[in-house]
């Protein structure tokens, strides 16, 4: 179980899996509350892109340092659910390699069990964010080859 997840992301997923019912939402809210202010270099970052599949306007940037990626997001405060997802991705994939990211199963988040307390539509933000993160990982891999 979780063999294909980067270690920190695997921990986050099992923390969620161990919570029951509303506790899962409380935990997601903790992540949303820890969502950091936009990094100073973000606005100037020409790599920042929109994640168009999200109902919520989400912007993302990726930085490759010594073969490892870090991500930053801009998500409005009125979308705490999406902020929570972005924070999980930021923390779970901090300084991971493109290969690790590409190995993440597309529906890894179902193991967290949030579908029990959120409608399917509210999970799509996570799917959209992961798809974009993977695309950036694939691009990073091409550059380093």
């Amino acid at each position, binding site marked *: 179980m979780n063999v294909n997840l980067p270690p920190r992301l695997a921990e986050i997923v099992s923390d969620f899996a161990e919570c029951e019912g509303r506790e899962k*939402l409380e935990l*997601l*809210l903790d992540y*949303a*509350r820890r969502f950091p202010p936009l990094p100073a270099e973000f606005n100037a970052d020409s790599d920042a892109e929109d994640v*168009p*599949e*999200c*109902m*919520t306007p989400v912007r993302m940037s990726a930085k490759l340092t010594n073969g490892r990626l870090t991500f930053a997001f801009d998500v409005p*405060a*009125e*979308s*705490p*659910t*999406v902020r*929570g997802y972005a924070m999980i991705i930021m923390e779970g994939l901090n300084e991971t390699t493109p290969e690790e990211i590409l190995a993440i199963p597309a529906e890894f988040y179902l193991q967290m069990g949030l579908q029990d*307390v*959120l*409608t*399917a*539509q*509210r*999970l*799509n*933000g996570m*799917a*959209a964010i992961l798809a974009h993160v993977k695309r950036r990982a694939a691009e990073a891999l091409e550059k380093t080859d």
Partner: protein
Amino acid sequence: MAEYAHPEFLVETEWVAQHLDDPSVRIVESNEDALLYDTGHIPGAVRVDWFTTLQHPVRRDFLTKEEFEALCSSLGISNDTTVVFYGDKSNWFAVYAFWLFEYYGHEKRKVMNGGRARWIAENRPLTTEVPSYPPTTYRAKEPDASIRAFRDDVMRHIQERLPLVDVRSPKEYTGELLHMPGYPQEGAQRGGHIPGAVNIPWAQAVNEDGRFKSPEELRQLYQSRGVTPDKEIIAYCRIGERSSHTWFVLKYLLGYPKVRNYDGSWTEWGNLVGAPIEKGEGSQV
């Protein structure tokens, strides 16, 4: 400026601010984002959630009458409480809750114009404190079937060539998209719209600040597309929440006498074996 047809069903933020401690008023927040209430809400406001509170836990339907009574009791709502609904995304899910309360016969209902975004834009107070109220003995009325359309009603509506309003985005209407952008798991087997429906996206009824447009603007918006008060109207979207917003505009702001919300909406129609579907631009009135 002309007034809305039934202004008693709409209140401004200032009215709400002056009734925060009024025991005859219960403020109810209903959002698209399930965590938003927890980040701060109007002092004294209770929460309902479209998925975890208002929908039936097993079958595709909303709460039964008994479950609705239990919900009202748990929120401290009595039969004579004035319930004020507000929420995110221009009150889209708040009006769904308003529609459900009307279905079960709750009389004193209001929507807060501009919703949550306007309350915050005006720097009004928020709290994370979750209130609790003593339970009530709530008695719901028999369901008001005149505001809800089922698929057979829609079929008859098509045959009688009565107006249908599709309030989804233009690409969902033409069939280019099977679901709303960003909501891939709530799609249908087939894309397009119900034959004869006109496409008037729900958000065209609100201004940038989330408040409803003026009566003149609204009248122009709907009447220019053949959606007129002399006819029976059915509104639909994907799962019936965006269309409850349009239902509210037609019934309460413009005073149309016969408007129904088809809450089965496209996730039912686009999956229904044999149901007629129109693709592309469709009928332009």
